[in-house]
């Protein structure tokens, strides 16, 4: 069964420290690499983004992330990999994406993290609606 990926609402900073604390018994780990996506208050045509509302094709997204995760374990010498993504409306400044990789050595943790982040952005059916201060919106597209 795919691992639970989606979190309703923003990712609280405590989730990151809790995840880190859980790895202190794994003394084969030498380095952790963490990526956090934070909602940026971009300006588009003079209007600031106040939030992004995320939806996803959840079952497919979880299967695809599971596949990407397995690819990462094949490619890199990883001890652990954890991935979380928000659904719902996330305010500017809040966290929406948390990718956490651990390995004996920093290189594998770092490269696997980059691989996971880039592949998830490209291959996983998640959709962000950027909401502006005047309540208009536009659909975000990853470049």
């Amino acid at each position, binding site marked *: 069964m795919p691992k639970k990926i989606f979190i309703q609402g923003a990712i609280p900073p405590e989730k990151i420290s809790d995840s880190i604390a859980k790895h202190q018994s794994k003394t084969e780990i030498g380095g952790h690499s963490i990526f956090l*996506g934070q909602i940026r208050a971009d300006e588009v045509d003079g209007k600031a983004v106040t939030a992004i509302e995320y*939806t996803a*094709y959840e079952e497919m997204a979880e299967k695809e992330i599971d596949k990407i995760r397995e690819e990462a374990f094949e490619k890199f010498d990883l001890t652990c990999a954890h991935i979380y993504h928000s659904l719902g409306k996330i305010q500017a400044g809040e966290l929406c994406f948390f990718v956490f990789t651990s390995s004996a050595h920093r290189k594998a943790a770092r490269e696997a993290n980059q691989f996971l982040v880039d592949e998830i*952005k*490209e291959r996983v059916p*998640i959709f962000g609606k950027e909401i502006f201060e005047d309540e208009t919106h536009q*659909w*975000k*597209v990853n470049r």
Partner: protein
Amino acid sequence: MKITIKYFGVIAEEAGKTEEVLELDSDDIDVEFLKDHCFSKYSLSDTKSIQVAVNQNMGASGPLQDGDEVAFLPPFSGG
């Protein structure tokens, strides 16, 4: 045959729904036909950038089977 259709992102917004079940008389329906059918029904825009997943497999094409789940997916923007 019975096909479940899922709409996401801008497509769901334009269609005014996220899901519907179509009961089709013919047993000879393919992905391309269904896409044309749904896109003209709701006057959906920008079909070039839309990807289709059948039973959660990307880039599917060809004939559909009874019970299939077809999803219309605009460009991804997770992360």
